[in-house]
């Protein structure tokens, strides 16, 4: 592109002395043409821009440092030395100036420390979670696989085992693919054997899992392909932490056995200390599915990861999977119609919706920083006016404007450096505070264990401080060194209000602060309203006083369905009479305790094609479950003890299922089959909807099945892992925990029991990320408001001081206090109005990126905008109250005498 040259020349020529311009341009042109021929136009263009910029800077500096004619001193190295000397002088002078005005300095450094500190703290979180590479070799090649069901707006749902094995067999894009199971938070193994029994978190994976993420055991061996066969799968890899804690880092541990939930596993290896996975497993065991489970196509409970083959792009892999998915949809229309495999980078799977939240918080914090900049800039502007005498003297003795700007910018950078240092301290404190309030959902985020100030974060803080210093320093420095300003400031000393330019600049900065604040306030209040809406969503049951405990019945001794039923009956019986216990129930899938499986639903004698996928969540529940949870029965009957094996199979559906699948008819008495062709059950009742995956997730169609009747569509032994729910009376919740343990131990001492928790805590955890989100953004909005109010106060009191004489004259000529007040308020009011207007416009645009984080409130909710505008205006009024009341108390005589 030939035409770059004139443009570059035009831009940079003015920095080069006139008599050198032509030969230098010619030299550049000559080299540029040679470069183009050798390296191509794009690189030559880059070269040209870079060289021209360097040349311009060199000459600019040379002129600023020495002026022309160039002094006869040594070589360029010495030139650099003199530059450093000048800088040191500037810094020393700057520090002296700042120490002479401790009030100004303290306020400026404090404002910057708030801005830079908050930015640094949030940056360190965002960097750790979103930007740092995952701790796996070539982590960008590792993809997370999921099953997408667009009709249900699920893009990365869990995978059915049969689908997974088909993908694994037929895809050519991956060097290895591995599945693992989704573990609900309360699922854990009981480690028994030498020492105290201990609960350990397992990760069940198919053998190539470690190879996919590129981890090799530190000790012993990785899983082998045959380890996923039932019967050979009793092998385990220990985490480094468990190995050290439980086995004293004994290297001979490989080959020994441990018992989990009464089953014996051989230790085949120990994972390296740096091994990390979001669920923080203590043990990794092979995921062995039996022949029946391997054929499940309607039960979705696997997740998968795959490492892309060299040379295969994610796009190719997606296409490869799409073809397999299309074939499976055709071959198995009942289960797989409208299903397709999908893949995304592993980090996206780990981070999920937290990404938006983090970026919104980072945006909020950047606004606080900008406001702090504007604030310091207004302070500097006010100070610049006061320093006009100094500037004039320096100009008179020959300082160039560039030299003055350099001096003032150095002072700004000194302030920024001090603010940055204080900010980093603030950030490291707030990070330790943040670590203690992080919700459980955040524990699985990459890098969250290593939050802190390290080299990267420090570098970011330094860059932010420097850029901040430039941003808030450049306008005041230019204004202060402006000779035209000097002239008008001579007038100011006679009682004016500074040059029009300087005044506009100050007002502009305050308007910017006001509008940025309003954007933050609006964003924060939208989040607060959303959160408030969310906590007021009725979950469909009564969570208070509900105590829950997960129970895993060992498969070996509870192979028969009847034994499982007998176990839960016995526990319920023992607990029912205990003090403080009102009712006892059990369920295979508890609300707010992780996702639950979904199966296809067949409705008897219905032939018409459904316009949407016909699926339900099957939930096995005990007879007393509905009463214990206080889930209302809308129609029909509940379960009773006669709904057992041998009698007619029954089901209770929820209202969502009734609405969706029987919109115009009565479901009661109809027969359905769940996850199978002809496993018919009669619908005997309709239960109220419950929120399951979160307060913000609408109820999905669900079918409750009595625990006493066998249900095998989700695999053998589905009913063996269940959660006991106990409604305690009054405030007896805390005392119920030991009762549950005793009751379970009395029935079968070898049945492990999970953490005993309260339902309220579970719901609290599900909304904790939103709580943190709105708390952070609100805190930043509050800081922004305070900074803005301070900025407005500063500017208005400065204006009033400057106009004392004018006000005095006006009052001497008969102006009333009201008129003086109106004069001052008009000034402040127009700034506030403009700020509010711009802020509303900005908020309308920017809050759109938050829509996924809002709940029950639109991003353009007029009430929110109105109330926040009023709040901002009220705070602004408060900020100008003192200066304007001072204006009305100006004594005309004193004001005139002073001037």
């Amino acid at each position, binding site marked *: 592109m030939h035409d770059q040259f004139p443009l570059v020349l035009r831009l940079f020529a003015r920095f080069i002395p006139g008599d050198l311009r032509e030969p230098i341009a*010619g030299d550049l042109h000559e080299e540029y043409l040679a470069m183009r021929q050798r390296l191509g136009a794009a690189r030559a263009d880059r070269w040209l821009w870079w060289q021209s910029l360097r040349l311009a800077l060199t000459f600019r500096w040379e002129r600023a440092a020495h002026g022309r004619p160039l002094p006869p001193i040594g070589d360029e190295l010495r030139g650099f030395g003199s530059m450093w000397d000048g800088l040191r002088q500037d810094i020393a002078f700057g520090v002296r100036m700042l120490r002479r005005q401790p009030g100004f300095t303290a306020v400026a450094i404090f404002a910057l420390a708030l801005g830079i500190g908050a930015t640094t703290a949030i940056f360190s979180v965002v960097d750790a979670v979103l930007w740092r590479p995952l701790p796996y070799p070539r982590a960008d090649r590792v993809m997370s696989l999921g099953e997408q069901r667009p009709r249900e707006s699920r893009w990365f749902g869990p995978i059915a085992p049969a689908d997974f094995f088909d993908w694994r067999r037929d895809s050519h894009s991956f060097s290895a693919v591995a599945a693992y199971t989704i573990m609900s938070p309360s699922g854990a193994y009981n480690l028994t054997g030498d020492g105290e029994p201990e609960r350990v978190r397992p990760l069940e994976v198919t053998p190539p899992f470690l190879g996919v993420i590129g981890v090799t055991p530190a000790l012993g061996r990785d899983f082998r392909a045959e380890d996923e066969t039932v019967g050979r799968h009793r092998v385990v890899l220990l985490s480094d932490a468990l190995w050290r804690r439980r086995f004293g880092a004994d290297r001979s541990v490989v080959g020994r056995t441990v018992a989990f939930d009464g089953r014996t596993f051989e230790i085949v290896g120990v994972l390296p200390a740096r091994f990390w996975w979001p669920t923080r497993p203590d043990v990794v065991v092979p995921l062995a599915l039996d022949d029946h489970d391997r054929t499940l196509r309607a039960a979705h409970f696997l997740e998968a990861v795959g490492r892309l083959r060299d040379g295969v792009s994610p796009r190719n892999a997606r296409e490869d999977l799409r073809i397999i998915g299309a074939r499976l949809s055709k071959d198995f229309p009942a289960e797989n119609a409208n299903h397709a495999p999908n893949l995304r980078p592993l980090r996206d799977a780990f981070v999920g919706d937290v990404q938006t939240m983090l970026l919104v918080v980072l945006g909020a914090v950047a606004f606080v920083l900008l406001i702090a900049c504007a604030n310091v800039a207004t302070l500097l502007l006010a100070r610049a006016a006061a320093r006009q005498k100094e500037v004039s003297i320096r100009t008179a003795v020959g300082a160039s404007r560039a030299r003055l700007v350099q001096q003032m910018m150095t002072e700004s950078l000194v302030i920024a450096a001090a603010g940055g240092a204080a900010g980093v301290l603030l950030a490291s404190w707030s990070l330790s505070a943040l670590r203690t309030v992080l919700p459980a959902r955040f524990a699985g985020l990459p890098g969250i264990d290593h939050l802190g100030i390290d080299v990267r974060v420090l570098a970011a803080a330094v860059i932010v401080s420097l850029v901040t210093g430039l941003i808030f320093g450049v306008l005041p420095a230019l204004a202060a060194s402006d000779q035209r300003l000097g002239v008008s400031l001579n007038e100011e000393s006679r009682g004016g209000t500074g040059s029009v330019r300087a005044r506009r600049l100050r007002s502009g900065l305050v308007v910017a602060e006001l509008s940025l604040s309003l954007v933050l306030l609006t964003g924060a209040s939208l989040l607060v309203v959303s959160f408030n809406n969310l906590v007021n969503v009725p979950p469909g049951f009564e969570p208070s006083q509900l105590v829950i405990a997960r129970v895993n019945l060992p498969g070996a001794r509870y192979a028969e369905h009847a034994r499982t039923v007998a176990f839960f009956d016995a526990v319920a019986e023992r607990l029912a009479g205990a003090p403080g216990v009102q009712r006892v129930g059990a369920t295979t899938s508890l609300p707010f305790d992780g996702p639950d499986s979904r199966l296809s639903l067949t409705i008897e004698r219905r032939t018409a094609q459904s316009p949407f996928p016909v699926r339900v969540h099957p939930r096995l529940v005990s007879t007393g479950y509905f009463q214990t949870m206080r889930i209302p029965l809308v129609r029909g009957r509940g379960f009773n003890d006669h709904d057992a094996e041998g009698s007619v199979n029954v089901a209770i559906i929820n209202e969502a299922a009734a609405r969706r699948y029987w919109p115009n008819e009565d479901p009661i008495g109809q027969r359905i089959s769940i996850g199978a062709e002809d496993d018919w059950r009669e619908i005997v009742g309709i239960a109220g909807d419950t929120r399951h995956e979160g307060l913000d997730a609408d109820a999905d169609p669900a079918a409750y099945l009595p625990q006493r009747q066998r249900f095998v569509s989700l695999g053998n032994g589905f009913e063996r892992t269940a959660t006991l729910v106990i409604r305690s009376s009054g405030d007896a919740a805390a005392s119920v925990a030991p009762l549950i343990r005793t009751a379970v131990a009395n029935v079968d001492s070898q049945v492990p029991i999970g953490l005993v928790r309260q339902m309220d805590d579970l719901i609290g955890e599900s909304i904790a990320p939103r709580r943190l989100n709105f708390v952070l953004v609100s805190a930043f909005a509050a800081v922004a408001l305070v900074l803005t109010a301070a900025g407005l106060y500063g500017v208005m009191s400065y204006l009033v001081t400057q106009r004392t004489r004018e006000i005095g004259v006006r009052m001497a000529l008969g102006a009333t206090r009201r008129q003086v007040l109106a004069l001052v308020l008009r000034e402040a009011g127009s700034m506030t109005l403009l700020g509010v207007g711009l802020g509303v416009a900005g908020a309308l645009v920017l809050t759109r990126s938050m829509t996924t984080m809002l709940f029950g409130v639109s991003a353009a909710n007029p009430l929110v905008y109105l109330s926040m505008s009023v709040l901002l205006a009220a705070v602004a009024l408060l900020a100008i109250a003192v200066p304007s009341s001072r204006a009305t108390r100006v004594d005309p005589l004193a004001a005139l005498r002073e001037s």
Partner: protein
Amino acid sequence: MAATDVTSLGEFEHMVLLAIMRLGDDAYAVPVRDEIARCTGRDVSRGSIYITLDRLETKGYLKSRLADPTPERGGRAKRYYELRPRAVDALKDSRRALVALWRGLETALS
């Protein structure tokens, strides 16, 4: 312009003068920079070449002339430099001084 003393010749100025001497009739900024790079392996910034040439001219070590414009330079002239006698003297002096100082030291460094 007080500095006529040879000792005020900096290391880099020295290199530039020698490069011009080596180049003879073809001494303008681009080949000067290339020659320094070729002989010393130092990649010097263009800006310092121009500033040093300018300074050496001001100090009276160099004289320059503008050549005719050529099309491959976008119709712009080259500025050719040549050494004035002072510069040759200064180089000779410094060489003499350096050689004298080096004498007998070759073994000390080997």
